[in-house]
């Protein structure tokens, strides 16, 4: 399944946040969207998943989702969005219950996704008992349980400390190598973008336009060993962004 974005333009009241965004997300591809704060990256992601509607332009789905996909477009949120009153397995079963999956079938899926995210020992734990990294792994397990075609990740690692972030990046790469999911990955962290993205879309400051698209032609699995090259790439992207970020920083924030 592929995603096609056509000329997305949006404003909140008087403030224009996004202007003429068009790109495609191919099957099995991770596209990282980066840009200075307030450039509308998270808004864009909400359009892609159908949680909000843009003023003009459209998001199209091409092709059928893989069979057995309960929720083709699945989010992973920055703040994890786990129900604090449900245990780890309860949080996963939440998204299965509405599809009528209960009992043994639900248990099989939950066992499987918890094993894939190395959480099998924590099924009965409540979110408050888990570290930030583990909470995000629960959220990833929950996303995997519905068999998504596209993962929409909204700064999934930004609430975590840098060591946990490294570990989770490795986990994500491993997961992608096995599952080959497509993902739209919004971040403001360049290191994450060059580690995980097949393509990096750099947005300008508000109103967000596509400033540049950087293709990274290096297999994800090789990247940890080619840090020097990634570093060069990261600096190159930063050169593109630098002036935008500086200008964005000087603007008075009047939109959320």
């Amino acid at each position: 399944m592929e995603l096609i974005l056509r000329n997305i333009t949006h404003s909140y009241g008087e403030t224009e946040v996004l202007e003429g965004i068009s790109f495609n997300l191919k099957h099995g591809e991770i596209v990282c969207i980066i840009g200075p704060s307030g450039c509308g990256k998270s808004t864009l992601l909400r359009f892609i998943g159908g949680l909000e509607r843009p003023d003009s332009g459209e998001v199209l789905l091409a092709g059928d989702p893989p069979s057995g996909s309960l929720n083709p477009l699945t989010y992973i949120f920055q703040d994890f969005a786990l129900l604090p009153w449900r245990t780890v397995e309860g949080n996963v079963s939440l998204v299965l219950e509405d599809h009528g999956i209960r009992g043994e079938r639900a248990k099989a899926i939950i066992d499987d996704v918890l094993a894939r995210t190395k959480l099998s020992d924590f099924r009965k734990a409540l979110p408050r008992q888990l570290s930030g990294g583990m909470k995000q792994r629960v959220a990833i397990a929950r996303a995997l349980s519905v068999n998504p075609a596209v993962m929409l990740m909204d700064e999934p690692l930004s609430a975590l400390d840098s060591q946990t972030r490294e570990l989770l990046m490795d986990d994500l790469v491993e997961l992608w190598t096995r599952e080959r999911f497509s993902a739209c990955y919004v971040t403001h962290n360049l290191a994450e973008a060059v580690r995980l993205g097949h393509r990096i879309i750099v947005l300008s400051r508000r109103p967000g336009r596509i400033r540049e698209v950087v293709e990274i032609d290096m297999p994800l699995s090789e990247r940890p060993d080619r840090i020097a090259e990634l570093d060069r790439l990261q600096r190159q992207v930063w050169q593109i962004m630098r002036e935008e970020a500086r200008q964005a920083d000087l603007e008075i924030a009047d939109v959320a």
Partner: protein
Amino acid sequence: MSHDLAHGGSPIQRPIDAANARPVPFRGGGFRHRKLGIVSPIVFAVIIALWELGSRSGIISDIALPAPSAALAAFMDLVHTGMLWKHLGASLYRLVLGWTLGSLLGVAFGLAIGLFSLARAGLLPLVSALFPIPKIALLPLFIIWFGIGEGSKVATILFGTFFPTVIATYGGVDNVDRNLIRMGQSFGLSWLSIVRKIIIPGALPAILSGFRISASIAIVLLVAAEMIGAEFGIGSYILMAGSLFALDQLIAGVAILSVMGLIISWAIGRAERYFLNWRT
């Protein structure tokens, strides 16, 4: 330190004077509560003992305030004559019925106001207008509407507990993390599932603390409700004692209300611990 570094580029090499080292003065602490479970019984006991002593020695006149022993005697009198259970039974019936109905309706209306724009636009101004009216003032109306028997008494308590519950409930719904709701929508959960599994559990802390307030209001209103046409009931017992200036009975009745309040607040505390064990 930063100046040294700025000048030399590396920390200045000087031997550490360990002989003159002293511990860093402790400045934290305080502003944090410790559990001192035995203090409150001691405070109660000391006050009652002083009061009893004052009454016996004549410092506190019997006319101004009867001794605790006199109040206890009045209470034992109630127990022996069997009137205690009659009074308690009548009051608890009104209290439980009025509070339960008021809370159920309050939660239902609160959820409606929290979930539907139309209900909010239509009902919220009404609730805000009616909430501050002292329900005691409406007692004559309730007597005409619901009869001088149990109806008017239950209705007074019902209306008194309804409004604070509505306000606590819709406030709780408003405070549910929008991100959790958005998460529910992003996974394609049905509207009913989002309400049942995300909004109601998320509003539960606010609803339970609303219960705490409405239970106290119910006890306050009990006395008012039993002002007219009540043969039995703790409230009517207190009012009767008051009009006869039987202060020992009055104190005994008030103490019973106070104990009822304590028991209810303890029960709600238990409920909170059971339902909200997921909170830190």
